[in-house]
């Protein structure tokens, strides 16, 4: 009986998380709709604007985020097996790589600021045409909103690592707590998987 109740509790928790993630998908979905409309209306201008972005830094950041997702997936597997040390290390690695992502993103923003590519910080004349200006507006809003999500995720992962380490989250009984944070982190990764080609690789 206890097992059924626990399984039901887990399903409810995951379902609530998926509902929240659905709202996140629609939030970013609006931005992807803007990207699609811009590309359909001004193909040449958007290609030229996209070529100014540092696609190498973007690719490096994709590697960082994919690897952090692996670390978190390993942490969830360890949590379900009741391995406390493995869970803590996995969560810490995920959070550390998340900080690495943010650091690399900051370096990128600074160099874009010097190249006068960032809207609001560069005069409108700095952009080749209004479509390029719009594209950079979208770039700044989409990547900064994503960075906010990474920041929240880093906080969640680090906090969870601390709780598991201090045994205030009992494993494997409360492994679902690790699993839901993992789901959030993977979704942030999935959003970046789409943002990267949509922003950096328009050719």
């Amino acid at each position, binding site marked *: 009986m206890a097992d059924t109740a626990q399984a039901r509790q887990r399903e409810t928790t995951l*379902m609530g998380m998926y509902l929240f993630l*659905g709202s996140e998908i*629609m939030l970013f*979905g609006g931005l992807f*709709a803007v990207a699609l409309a811009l590309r359909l209306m001004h193909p040449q201008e958007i290609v030229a604007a996209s070529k100014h972005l540092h696609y190498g830094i973007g690719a490096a950041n994709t590697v960082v985020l994919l690897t952090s997702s692996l670390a978190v997936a390993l942490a969830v597997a360890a949590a379900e097996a009741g391995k406390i040390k493995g869970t803590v290390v996995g969560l810490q690695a995920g959070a550390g790589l998340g900080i690495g992502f943010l650091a690399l993103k900051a370096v990128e923003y600074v160099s874009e600021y010097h190249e006068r590519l960032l809207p609001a910080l560069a005069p409108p004349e700095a952009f080749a045409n209004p479509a390029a200006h719009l594209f950079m507006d979208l770039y700044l809003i989409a990547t900064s909103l994503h960075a906010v999500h990474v920041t929240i995720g880093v906080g969640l992962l680090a906090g969870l690592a601390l709780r598991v380490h201090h045994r205030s989250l009992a494993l494997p009984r409360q492994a679902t707590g690790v699993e839901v944070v993992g789901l959030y982190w993977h979704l942030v*990764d999935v959003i970046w998987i*789409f943002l990267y*080609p949509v922003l950096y690789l328009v050719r």
Partner: protein
Amino acid sequence: MRTIAPLLTVWAALLALLGLTVGASLVLTGTPSLIASLAIAGLKAALVVWVFMQLRREGGLMRVMALGAVFWLLILLGYLVLDYATR
């Protein structure tokens, strides 16, 4: 090891697909480039959702719950494309 091996395999596949999408952007342009980059991104997302998020071990209801938003998103993007493509 049985739970870890698929995670490592998927991670390697994701890195390979990243290389593929960067490579494709260097050779393709226009609509083929758009289709290739979105197809590769879709494949990467599917791998993350199926293996990292462990949707493969869940039942039907949970899968509907997880993928429902994708359906709404396709409605949003689909009608947007219809609008611009038929002007």
